[in-house]
């Protein structure tokens, strides 16, 4: 796929556990962004990481970027039932104005 891959496609964990989602891409990027989507809703921006950054944090979220491996990961620590949602990574490819989204990871956090 030109978009790259996200894995896993689905993830089910217990409340309190950590959740890790991965995103890979195939061409160079300016930045990579993670979004969250609750069922049937629009997407909400979580974190943006630029190509010259390696790690960013926001509350319980930690995003890493490895440009040599063309991959990123999103870690949600101490997950809560309210974290149940789909998570998408979006790449801003070099030379493109728009973002390229993957097909997402569906996270289910069991109370």
């Amino acid at each position: 796929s030109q978009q790259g891959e996200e894995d896993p496609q689905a993830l089910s964990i217990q409340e309190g556990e950590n959740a890790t989602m991965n995103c890979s891409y195939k061409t160079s990027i300016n930045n990579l962004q993670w979004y969250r989507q609750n069922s049937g809703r629009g997407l909400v921006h979580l974190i943006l990481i630029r190509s010259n950054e390696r790690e960013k944090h926001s509350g319980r979220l930690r995003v890493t970027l490895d440009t040599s491996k063309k991959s990123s990961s999103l870690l949600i620590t101490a997950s809560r039932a309210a974290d149940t949602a789909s998570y998408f990574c979006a790449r801003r490819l070099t030379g493109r104005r728009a973002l390229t989204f993957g097909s997402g990871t569906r996270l289910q956090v069991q109370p």
Partner: protein
Amino acid sequence: DVKVTQSSRYLVKRTGEKVFLECVQDMDHENMFWYRQDPGLGLRLIYFSYDVKMKEKGDIPEGYSVSREKKERFSLILESASTNQTSMYLCASSRQGETQYFGPGTRLLVL
């Protein structure tokens, strides 16, 4: 507080009808986007606009057109709706290369 609104949450149309989906943002963003979202395919870019009256085709523009006469409003037009255009349509806006803000989505059913 940023806001992107879409004219309808749910829409039912008949094959061959002309369909207008409206999107309005109140953040004075240059860029506006239309995506469609289908199960297992993630978000796919239909069209985007980087200025008033300016537009670029996305990955799946066939069967769609767009209009941006004012900075805050971006319309998606299905000239002759077909059943394979049944989908969730998401509008977003952003400043250059940055975070995208999404509307709540329009779920379109074409019978």
